[in-house]
């Protein structure tokens, strides 16, 4: 089942066009409420191409067993496929060692793992945790829990009205800080944050940096060594993989010092009543039977993305973002929220006089799927003094026609509401 080799050989011969790539996604071929589906909620969850679906079917049909503990053939097959998935992850983000890649259930668990394993060990009373103003709740709440428990403080890197971080006082904020937590790309605004600069300045003060990469990993080539951060967290289901799988990449030096997150099977070398010796990385952090199928599915998603090429995906999405931004601006009474100079393909917007939920319902009636709400980023909404936004988030398999249908739907919104 070497999809990757075949795909890469094909891709080398001729780049497949976007029409063909879109047709890899069976879910996009349906109609919703008598309209062709335009799926523009990719930041919430992306769709899976047939290759990934097939890989899951094949795993369940011919390979499934538990991993790392069987002498029999199926267990060996499952173990091999699972281990290969980890190798693919490591290659995809350019980790220096495969064992630095921990499988988790998703970005949220990855961050909680760091809050638990790193935070409890290295963050104490009066210490500071620096968090950006544009984080998703999953990169806020674990730190609030930890800060409450330890008596630590949280400092917030402010952001501008355009949705860009203001780093003027960042160096002062780093005094007494034990960790910086920042997303690579904002899920609510699309802002791409200057991770290399943040890491550079934090490291000068000896402060490690955790990056929430959930919204970056599907959109651009990510090289954790080049970014220089200490932890990088992401989810499979936002990068054409299944739900229930995610990754925490961490520097070996930190991971080795950290305490296990959960205890159980598969993470031990030996257990006696006198005491327990933990396994080495990465297994120390993977107690219990993992999401084997989902991990293998994630590996297939990586193969698929690489067959297109992350740089090509980034260029395509930049085209779609520019097209979408232009078309939305031609409509009066619409304001785009998040206007950073460097943006991923996320368009958050508000329509004067219409609540985002009503926009979402009317668009859905025309087959256009967007997210409406606070996007699990209430502090971002509070900062911008809006209750919620509607958000169209684009993936490489979207096309201009999806944006045209969004705009047509917005004309309906304006007509119905008389604005």
């Amino acid at each position, binding site marked *: 089942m070497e999809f990757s080799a075949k795909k890469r050989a094909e891709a080398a011969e001729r780049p497949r066009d976007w029409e063909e790539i879109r047709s890899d996604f069976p879910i996009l071929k349906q109609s919703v409420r008598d309209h062709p589906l335009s799926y523009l909620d990719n930041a919430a969850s992306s769709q899976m191409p047939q290759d990934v679906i097939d890989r899951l079917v094949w795993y369940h049909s011919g390979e499934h067993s538990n991993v790392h503990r069987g002498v029999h053939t199926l267990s060996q097959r499952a173990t091999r496929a699972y281990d290969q998935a980890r190798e693919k992850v490591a290659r995809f983000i350019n980790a220096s060692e495969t064992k630095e890649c921990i499988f988790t259930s998703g970005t949220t668990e990855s961050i909680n793992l760091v809050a638990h394993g790193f935070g409890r060990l290295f963050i104490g009373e009066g210490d500071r945790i620096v968090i950006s103003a544009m984080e998703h709740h999953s990169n806020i709440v674990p730190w609030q829990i930890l800060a409450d428990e330890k008596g630590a403080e949280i400092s917030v890197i402010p952001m501008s009205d355009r949705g860009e971080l203001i780093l003027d006082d960042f160096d002062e904020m780093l005094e007494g800080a034990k960790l910086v937590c920042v997303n690579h790309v904002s899920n609510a605004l699309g802002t791409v944050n200057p991770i290399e600069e943040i890491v550079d300045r934090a490291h000068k003060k000896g402060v490690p940096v955790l990056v929430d990469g959930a919204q970056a990993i599907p959109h651009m080539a990510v090289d954790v060594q080049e970014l220089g951060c200490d932890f990088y967290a992401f989810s499979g289901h936002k990068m054409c993989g299944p739900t229930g799988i995610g990754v925490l990449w961490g520097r070996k030096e930190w991971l080795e010092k950290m305490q296990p997150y959960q205890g159980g099977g598969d993470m031990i070398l030996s257990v006696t009543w006198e005491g327990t010796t933990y396994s080495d990385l990465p297994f120390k952090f993977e107690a219990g039977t993992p999401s084997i199928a989902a991990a293998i599915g994630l590996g297939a998603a990586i193969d698929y993305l690489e067959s297109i090429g992350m740089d090509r995906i980034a260029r395509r999405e930049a085209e779609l973002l520019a097209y979408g931004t232009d078309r939305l601006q031609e409509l009066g009474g619409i304001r785009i929220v998040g206007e950073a100079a460097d943006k991923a393909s996320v368009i958050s917007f508000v329509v004067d006089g219409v609540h985002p939920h009503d926009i979402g319902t009317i668009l859905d*009636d025309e087959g256009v799927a967007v997210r409406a709400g606070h996007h699990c980023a209430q502090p971002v909404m509070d900062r911008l003094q809006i209750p919620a936004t509607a958000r169209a988030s684009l993936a490489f398999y979207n096309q201009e026609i999806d944006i045209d249908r969004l705009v047509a739907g917005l004309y309906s919104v304006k007509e119905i509401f008389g604005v």
Partner: protein
Amino acid sequence: MSMRALYQEVILDHNRKPRNFGALEKANRRAEGENPLCGDNYTVYALVDDQGVIEEVKFEGQGCAISKAAASMMTVRIKGKSIEEAQELVQGFRHMLTGELEGGEKELLGHLTVFEGVAQRPERVKCAVLPWHALLAALEGGEKASTEGEHDVWHEE
């Protein structure tokens, strides 16, 4: 269902110009209604006399057109009613939204049947019912109604 059937003119009108909007200083009943998933948040105020008649009712807060119009039309309808009558209306309103109207309830609801289309949009039922449950919480001496968690408006069912 067409969107015009959901967003009827009367709903849009109440959304644009909500009636009885604002705080009620002399209220003796008050409760908040919130949907933490979408951020809709209303406060319902009522002034109830010794006989259990709702003399005045107002609301404030923010949310979508469905929830705001539901709140506005609710205040118009509920003024002068007894607590028992309000409870009957809430029950009828809920039955309409879940497609379980019983005999006589449609007549009881009258104008409020403009929200019947919401039943076709299950994800929006919580929007329409939110202010009603805040009212119920206020009348029954509670302080909070929520679409989620322990204050979940469907909790008892």
